[in-house]
């Protein structure tokens, strides 16, 4: 017997298929969605390439241009890669990857030839979507990306599903919808690993407090309603909430800066690599009552942590600086969480060494003579008593006509003198700066501290949210026993401290940069409720989704289920099975809702009736063959069934547009058929 050679000939490639017209539409939409949120990370070069490619593609569609040859495309790609390589120091590694991916996706628009090209393109879009979570972590953005995943799925599906766009989208939603339960189970149960290797930091603008304080940069912050961090307390939060962030011990007559010693310390300790074992064990001996709180920080791209004075890092992930602030070993490039413990009675640096004392007394050689004279005068009044001197200085602020404003008259030259004795209008940084100057001039160690004050308390969820407009500056003065906080702004505008800046400054250019911010409209009850609901949603999102780490997972699983490897595995199995069952149910519901083609369903119903009457349709028998066979056999319902078959074939294959009109007709015929096909049976019985 002759059998052809089976193994010698190579496997034939799958039949190439012309691109489904809807595929290009899906991919374009998905591309737009994927690239839009990255607008800030992309180099202008990419925009130029994108415009060029889209214009070209448009010209191709119009028939005014041809597809570029692979050679042209390859040289364009190589050129683009070279340019991105040149720009990479500026973009950073992650930025370069973004730019490369976007460029690849863009050029792919000129290369829709084969299914393989499309597949690779969609893979790149999927990856790009995932990668953009590096920059965006808001819950709204997650919904946005879910849409993008849906579009990508529809694009892939359109390669295999030759139906209309609507059906493609429905099937794609079913696929994604069925995948979500499993994803949730895996998300909750799958063990979390620590970072496997060091990742390059994303390069983004630093936000929040700066290391240099002068009056100008604090007013910048008060115009922004951006969230800085949230803190959740197990009980009620302390009423006085001074979130210490940066300590400025060097003064040059205009700006306050971090001391060079502290800068060196930071440089030594803040490796680029995250090394938990390098965090120094606490130098403090913690004492007194304490309360725990958790900090959920927003990305600031800085390493400074906001903490109540004084706080220790209970999870040992933070460094304690010599000035009793906390520092993260890596910059806060994305949302993070920290467990802290607040010791309100903890003394701060009870023994001030001579070097440190000198540092906190240093003033520029000259300048501000009036302020120096006033300090000398105060010293003469209270030669020994630092505490009394401090009170006298504060009394000056209360007594004189000082005025709190966010838009003070500009100062130049001897700014402290001008502020203290002529303009007398300013905000926290002015008051703090001048008080610290006075104290130093009088020989009392003093320093400027910046951070945030207060924050909005959300009693329902038990957390405090702190925004950029809560930025504040105050003074710490060293009196025997340790550093003590002094807030001169309190003397001038107690409301600022008690009620927050927003109530005080509603019409003073507060939030001038955020016209759309809901914080501007707190006085409208409905909008305020909306704002609070959104804030609550965002809070839970941050706490439960973004910061769901190994320890949170451990806690949750321990609380709900058994611990231990066996328990986990069991849980994982059950969870996955449940998710799959849920997915199957979803698919069943979906099919039941959409149902098969109505004409087909009716036709099959007719076939079932005939099968009951003893003449089932044979396997693989076409509708017309079945009809002819019944006619030949002289089945009692054959004539009716002939009509049914004709209506069905007409509506389904010849003229689908008549379908809706035919359904009632078919129903009627089926009733008739039911009567006819039942008759012989009743006669028999």
């Amino acid at each position, binding site marked *: 017997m002759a059998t052809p050679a089976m*193994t010698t000939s190579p496997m034939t490639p799958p*039949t190439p298929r012309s691109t489904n017209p809807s595929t290009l539409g899906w991919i374009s939409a998905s591309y737009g969605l994927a690239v839009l949120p990255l607008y800030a990370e992309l180099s202008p070069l990419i925009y130029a390439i994108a415009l060029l490619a889209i214009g070209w593609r448009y010209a191709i569609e119009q028939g005014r241009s041809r597809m570029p040859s692979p050679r042209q495309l390859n040289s364009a790609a190589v050129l683009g890669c070279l340019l991105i390589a040149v720009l990479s120091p500026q973009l950073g590694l992650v930025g370069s990857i973004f730019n490369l991916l976007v460029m690849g996706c863009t050029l792919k628009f000129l290369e829709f030839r084969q299914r393989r090209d499309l597949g690779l393109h969609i893979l790149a879009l999927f990856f790009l979507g*995932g990668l953009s979570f590096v920059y965006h972590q808001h819950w709204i953005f997650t919904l946005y990306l879910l849409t993008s995943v849906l579009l990508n799925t529809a694009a892939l599906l359109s390669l295999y*599903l030759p139906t209309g766009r609507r059906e493609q989208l429905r099937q794609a939603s079913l696929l994604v919808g069925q*995948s979500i339960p499993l994803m949730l189970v895996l998300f909750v149960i799958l063990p*979390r690993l620590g970072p496997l290797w060091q990742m390059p930091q994303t390069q983004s603008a630093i936000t929040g407090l700066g290391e240099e304080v002068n009056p100008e940069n604090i007013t910048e912050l008060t115009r922004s309603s951006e969230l800085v961090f949230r803190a959740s307390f197990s009980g009620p939060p302390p009423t006085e909430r001074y979130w210490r962030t940066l300590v400025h011990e060097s003064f040059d007559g205009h700006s306050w800066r971090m001391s060079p010693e502290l800068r060196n310390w930071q440089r030594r300790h803040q490796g680029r690599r995250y090394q938990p074992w390098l965090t120094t064990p606490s130098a403090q001996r913690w004492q007194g009552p304490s309360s725990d709180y958790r900090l959920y920080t927003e990305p600031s791209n800085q390493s400074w942590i906001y903490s109540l004075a004084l706080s220790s890092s209970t999870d040992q992930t933070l460094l304690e600086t010599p000035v009793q602030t906390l520092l993260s070993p890596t910059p806060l490039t994305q949302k993070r969480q920290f467990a802290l413990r607040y010791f309100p009675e903890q003394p701060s640096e009870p023994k001030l060494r001579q070097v440190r004392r000198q540092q906190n007394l240093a003033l520029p050689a000259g300048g501000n003579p009036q302020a120096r004279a006033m300090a000398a005068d105060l010293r003469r009044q209270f030669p020994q008593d630092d505490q009394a001197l401090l009170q006298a200085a504060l009394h000056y602020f209360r007594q004189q006509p000082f005025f709190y404003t966010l838009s003070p008259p500009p100062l130049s030259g001897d700014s402290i003198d001008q502020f203290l004795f002529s303009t007398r209008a300013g905000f926290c940084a002015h008051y703090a700066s001048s008080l610290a100057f006075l104290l130093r001039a009088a020989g009392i160690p003093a320093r400027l501290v910046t951070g945030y004050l207060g924050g909005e308390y959300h009693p329902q969820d038990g957390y405090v949210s702190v925004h950029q407009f809560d930025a504040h500056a105050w003074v710490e003065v060293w009196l025997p026993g340790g550093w003590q906080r002094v807030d001169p702004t309190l003397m001038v505008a107690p409301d600022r401290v008690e009620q927050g800046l927003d109530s005080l400054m509603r019409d003073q250019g507060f939030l001038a940069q955020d016209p759309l911010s809901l914080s501007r409209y707190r006085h409208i009850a409905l909008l305020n409720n909306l704002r609070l609901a959104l804030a609550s949603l965002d809070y839970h999102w941050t706490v439960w989704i973004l910061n769901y780490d190994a320890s949170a997972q451990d806690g949750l699983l321990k609380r709900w289920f058994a611990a231990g490897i066996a328990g986990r595995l069991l849980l994982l199995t059950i969870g996955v099975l449940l998710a799959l069952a849920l997915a199957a149910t979803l698919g069943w519901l979906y099919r039941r809702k959409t149902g098969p083609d109505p004409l087909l369903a009716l036709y099959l119903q007719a076939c079932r009736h005939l099968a009951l009457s003893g003449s089932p349709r044979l396997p*693989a028998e076409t509708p017309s063959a079945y009809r002819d066979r019944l006619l030949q056999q002289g089945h009692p319902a054959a004539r009716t069934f002939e009509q049914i078959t004709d209506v069905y074939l007409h509506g389904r294959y010849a003229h689908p547009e008549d379908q809706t009109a035919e359904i009632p007709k078919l129903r009627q015929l089926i009733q008739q058929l039911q009567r006819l096909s039942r008759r012989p049976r009743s006669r028999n019985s």
Partner: protein
Amino acid sequence: MIRAALARLWQPLWSQWIERRLPPATRVQLHHRTLFIFPSRFGALYLLMVLMLYLLATNFQNNLILAMALLLLSLFVTCIWHCYRNLAGLTISALPTAPHFVGQSLRFAVQLTADDRPRYALQLGAAAGAEELLPELQQQGTLGVTFHATRRGWFKPGRLRLSSHYPLGLLRCWTQLDLQQQALIYPAPIAGPLPLSAGPGTDEVSSTHSSPVLPHHGQHTGSDELVGLRPYRLGESLSQIAWRQHAQGRGLFSKEFAAEPWQHPWLRLTHTPGQDLEEQLSRLSYAVLQLDQKQQRYGLELGAWRLDPATGAGQRQAALEALALYGHSRYDH
């Protein structure tokens, strides 16, 4: 090299296993025991991309990237079910394949039936054949694999591979079916003079075959065409010479036929020129086609096997079948 060696090792084991799992049948309904699912190359690439996202998520400690990676992984798992459902329940039955000549391409078709739901992107292929794609199957449709016929005889397509990449191309669900299909391949016709000759049995002049019978239409008994032998006269066709008698040294004889001696009805392998058997059979194949077209009577003799002269489609088919299978089975002597 290694791949080929592995394939050699693997192939027999695989055929044995699939033969047990999916025994040959002309009609097969697909279910979980007869369907296989594997990630496609694209699916492997997809999983690699998911792994990269996972590594990225772990290193950035970014839960949203992790969620994205897990969603894409779950999507892959969901696709397994959808990919399976796209083929499960499908009924495949063999359609007959007409005989072809060597050198022609022939298509083995199967009928696909799915009453409950439409099926998409069905591909049918075989190890040596050209694939076909059916983008959408509503209830019934056909698919085929086209082969190139290279040898005469029974052509078996081997196991047909029905597969689908639906829904996302990440996975390939497939089965290998032996629908017991086969097609007869006739020798390719090679043009030339028609090698007609006198009937069989005339080679040996024997008394049993010498009784003259008048030619008549209808059934013929193999030998009644030949009347006898007579001495060869110059100018007579060489094909009429009784070569065997000549070889036996009896002298030069011409075969004498009852009617139309220049139009002997017999096609005989032994009287067909050609370098080898295949060429001879090809020439006979051509002769059968020609004679059938002219609606002339012809008989066929292959070795000891004979087909009595007749005309018509039945005769043509019987003759070509014999030519296709000569040397393979019952014609083999």
